[in-house]
């Protein structure tokens, strides 16, 4: 195995590990192909197991012969290793650097990970598109499954199976694909059972500067409207950006050609702007020296919460069109793989109670992020500490999770999962032993044979013992549409993610535990009372039977 070549020094003794809120630990540092391990060899002392793929950046410095490596993780944690011996330290540092930036996906840990648990339900088959479609097909006959993309030939970033209007045949879909960015023709994202309105998503239309049009595209979109109804196109770019896109062959739906559709422009940022925002935010959170005013101004300057507000507002707007206006919506930005998915998935959280359950949320991520072709591999390659300018990284998924957390905070009893569930998903999107978030699209995952060669995250998460960690004790099924507030006062910083390593969570954890205890005890009593009632009822019926003749 070529890992051995990369590991120059597999073992160093007397290494001291420093982490915030923990006493320093001295032990032996080991490097394996995928992990950095520190073991103190003492009982009851926590060891450190760190995936190389979780390492975002490292710094090294020397004082005499004592070397120090500062490891900055993609989950924002910063740890420090004091390593005696300059050579050892340099070797370890270069090994970590090499191992944490492997080029080939197939060398990643998921391809080597062997589960230590029994798989009762294979997560790769937990959320099949056919099953998801069945939920709709019982309610409406206006939609169908299309296998036009079976070979990923029509649209490389789409899954093999998509839902489209029944009246549009595959031939038309092929034509529409040529008119949409990345071949992403409009497909069904969400069907609102209450009034039959839908959310569709796509890539931008390739109108270009001379206003190219596509009859099939117009027909497809109009096929989703009921007689006499109008729909909304929500373009996640500002009008300005959308107009500029025409010069590069892109564009937007001209009202003249889509008279039944009204276009709304929002402006959700993309790519490096988001990445820079994350970098600034995490830097502000890690800076312990500044005063209150600087903290607030750095928080403001990061613009993170501005992005949160913009994304949530757009999602609310989409949901409002569906639920309150009774109008269908088509959502796209440029590619339709980032801000589009943030909006379509958040709108579903607002509209659809099922997506607020654990299973439903997993299905949502599977459908609206993985199948829909969000390029996880590219977006999550680096996190807040990356110092090289790379074009494709962006915390698009993290912003989505943050928005979900914001809604969860405003409706703490309406979600089956808790904050830890969201944090777990964030961690696995950036570094994981599971194959779920590998690759940039279904076609890539297919080629990598992830289903055969790696384990699905859902196989692990959906075990009862794991689920209990992620279940919100306050959950009460709420069948209503939930409208979050998007006022700045209502959108605080997500401390559970961004201050996770900067403050002790002891007291908050205790509070959570106390909350669980209160509810568990209540359930216990309820069960006891019910048993006794039944016993009593039985006894009394017996008595009654004796009495009645």
């Amino acid at each position, binding site marked *: 195995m070529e890992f051995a070549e990369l590991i120059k020094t597999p073992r160093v003794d007397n290494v001291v590990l420093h982490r915030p809120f923990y006493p320093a630990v001295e032990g032996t540092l080991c490097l394996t192909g995928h992990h950095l391990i520190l073991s103190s060899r003492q009982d009851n002392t926590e060891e450190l197991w760190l995936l190389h793929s979780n390492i975002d950046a490292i710094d090294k410095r020397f004082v005499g012969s004592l070397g120090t490596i500062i490891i900055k993780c993609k989950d924002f944690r910063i740890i420090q290793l004091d390593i005696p011996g300059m050579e050892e330290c340099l070797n370890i540092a270069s090994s970590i650097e090499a191992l944490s930036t492997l080029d080939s996906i197939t060398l990643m840990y998921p391809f080597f990970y062997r589960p230590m648990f029994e798989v009762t339900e294979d997560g790769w088959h937990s959320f099949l598109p056919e099953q998801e479609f069945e939920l709709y097909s019982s309610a409406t006959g206006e939609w169908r499954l299309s296998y036009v993309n079976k070979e990923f030939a029509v649209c490389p970033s789409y899954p093999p199976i998509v839902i489209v209007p029944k009246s549009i045949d595959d031939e038309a879909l092929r034509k529409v694909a040529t008119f949409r960015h990345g071949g992403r023709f409009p497909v069904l994202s969400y069907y609102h059972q*209450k009034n039959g309105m839908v959310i569709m998503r796509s890539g931008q239309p390739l109108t270009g500067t001379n206003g190219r049009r596509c009859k099939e595209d117009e027909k497809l979109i109009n096929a989703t409207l009921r007689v006499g109804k109008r729909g909304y196109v929500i373009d996640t770019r500002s009008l300005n950006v959308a107009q500029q896109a025409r010069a590069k062959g892109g564009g937007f739906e001209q009202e003249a050609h889509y008279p039944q559709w*009204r276009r*709304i422009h929002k402006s959700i940022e993309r790519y490096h702007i988001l990445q820079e925002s994350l970098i600034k935010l995490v830097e502000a959170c890690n800076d*312990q020296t*500044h*005063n*209150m*005013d600087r*903290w*607030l101004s750095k928080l*403001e300057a990061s*613009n993170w*919460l*501005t992005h949160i*507000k913009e994304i949530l*507002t*757009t999602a*609310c*707007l989409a949901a*409002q069109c569906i*639920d*309150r*206006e009774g109008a269908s919506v088509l959502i796209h930005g440029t590619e339709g793989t980032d801000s589009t998915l943030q909006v379509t998935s958040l709108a579903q959280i607002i509209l659809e109670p099922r997506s607020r359950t654990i299973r439903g949320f997993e299905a949502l991520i599977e459908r609206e992020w993985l199948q829909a072709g969000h390029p996880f591999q590219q977006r999550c390659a680096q996190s807040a500490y990356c110092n090289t300018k790379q074009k494709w990284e962006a915390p698009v998924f993290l912003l989505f999770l943050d928005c979900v957390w914001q809604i969860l905070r405003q*409706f703490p*009893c*309406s979600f089956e999962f808790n904050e830890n569930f969201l944090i777990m998903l964030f961690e696995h999107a950036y570094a994981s032993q599971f194959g779920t978030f590998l690759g940039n699209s279904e076609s890539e995952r297919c080629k990598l044979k992830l289903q055969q060669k790696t384990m699905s995250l859902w196989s692990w998460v959906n075990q009862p013992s794991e689920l209990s960690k992620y279940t919100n004790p*306050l959950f*009460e099924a*709420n069948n*209503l*549409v*939930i*409208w979050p*507030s998007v*006022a*700045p*006062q*209502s959108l605080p910083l997500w*401390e559970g993610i961004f201050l996770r390593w900067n*403050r002790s969570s002891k*007291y908050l954890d*205790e*509070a959570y535990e*106390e*909350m669980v205890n*209160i*509810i568990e005890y*209540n359930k216990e009593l*309820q069960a*006891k*009372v*019910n048993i*006794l009632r039944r*016993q*009593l*009822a039985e006894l*009394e019926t017996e*008595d009654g039977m*004796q*009495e009645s003749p």
Partner: protein
Amino acid sequence: MEHIRTPKVENVRLVDRVSPKKAALGTLYLTATHVIFVENSPDTRKETWILHSQISTIEKQATTATGCPLLIRCKNFQIIQLIIPQERDCHDVYVSLIRLARPVKYEELYCFSFNPMLDKEEREQGWVLINLSEEYKRMGLPNNYWQLSDVNREYRVCDSYPTELYVPKSATAHIIVGSSKFRSRRRFPVLSYYYKDNHASICRSSQPLSGFSARCLEDEQMLQAIRKANPGSDFVYVVDTRPKLNAMANRAAGKGYENEDNYSNIKFQFIGIENIHVMRNSLQKMLEVCELKSPSMSDFLWGLENSGWLRHIKAIMDAGIFIAKAVSEEGASVLVHCSDGWDRTAQVCSVASLLLDPHYRTLKGFMVLIEKDWISFGHKFNHRYGNLDGDPKEISPVIDQFIECVWQLMEQFPCAFEFNERFLIHIQHHIYSCQFGNFLCNSQKERRELKIQERTYSLWAHLWKNRADYLNPLFRADHSQTQGTLHLPTTPCNFMYKFWSGMYNRFEKGMQPRQSVTDYLMAVKEETQQLEEELEALEERLEKIQKVQLNCTKVKSKQSEPSRHSGFSTSDNSIANTPQDYSGNMKSFPSRSPSQGDEDSALILTQDNLKSSDPDLSANSDQESGVEDLSCRSPSGGEHAPSEDSGKDRDSDEAVFLTA
């Protein structure tokens, strides 16, 4: 009442602050104590009650085609915008309110007409609920080091101090009187808190009249006596809570701070908390931010930073943390002062006490703390909160800041406090409401002269009676967070301090979390208690039946299946179902109102339809019932009618909340 120019105006519109296009049409009434707006809508007849004493500013804006707008800002952060059709009516209301909101004598205040229908005995009991003599006993006083001094009987030495004061045993009357002459307003050093575990204490005073070089032997002896009262430490911290520059400037006026060279064994320390004027402006700036119509995130964060409010909160907390550490970790006594020793000193002493002693984190203990460090030690409630018409430069949110410090701590230590956020909000409300006599006047002396206890009711008794609403479900007396000192991190955790929207935007319900974890858990706990009782009863009955085994008469299980789903309504679903204006100023977005034409609108009540989900002071702002006869109530004769209602309705509203 002679100040009411027009008791009733019809066809007034109450503008919805969140969506200004929505306005409720109704009738405006002015009574001796309240402004009342009653909506015309026959289904709701929703009422909004504003106490005159809550009114902070009234602004008459330029008349438009629709009428004359009147903006009322309240001290409890409510903002009411009315549009009155006739300019003349608007002017009358304006002029009346200007006068009503600024009473000139105490007798005009609501507490003198408020009648919660308690008899004399109940009222008297209410006033003895919080007993400071008991509190000093609880601290372990008097003891070998500290004694009760009668030097201030009949307020002979210091008229802003209480009569009951604890001083070091070795401080003779001569020393005390001598020291008092060397201190601003004669506020000599006295005990605020005694830490039983190690004899360290927190003492308080005003600044010394040291000027550039003046000394006072008795004052030096006084500090010496404080040091000697703590055998565990050979020095005393003297904490001046002002910025150094301010303290130095005071020297020119013959005031100033202690010179370490003159006092043996003191360690002098400045902790810069700004003065009341800076704080007043800071709050003003922050409220302007809260008032912005659909601000961007940058507007909000920038405005929050620019207001400096959280910086000031942190400064107060830092001072409290410093003192708590000195007392509990170093075992050193601390003398705290600012200028007069009734604002910053009160804030800092009470924050430190709260950190040190779990008793102050209980419902009753917190009332004691306010009674002790604020009310008895002469915090100038009347001046600071503008109860009577006075110098606007004296007004400052001093106790508001303390209350916010407590909230910030509650956020950090969710299990450590017996009370919840609502308790803090209600106390803040009543500091301004003047519905109860506790916070009247500027000193104990004035309150005694006014015979407050014979003529008004105590807030503490009222809060205690309704304590079920104020409990923190996560509090357990035996929980580790409940024990001992609260330890905060030493690093400058600026991010720990957060904007308190539950206070400053509390009337914008849509901004608050739409489901309350506290209320949910309280409902669960209540049900748990019922289940425990039922379990016991069932076990008993089962035992009986099994034992007797004879056909006694059947008793149907009288309790129905506990159904948690109908029981716990913590979410205000009406609000959950009212989308905001997400389109911003988007022209292209349809003008059709979102709530129109939905076949399922039965489910979707409008926000205004619902009972206020916040039992919060709805008594004074959001009443629902008993409206029909309102119009025939003569405002002048109605002096106590609305007050009755508020007393009654508060309870019913609160009860409704858990069962609705």
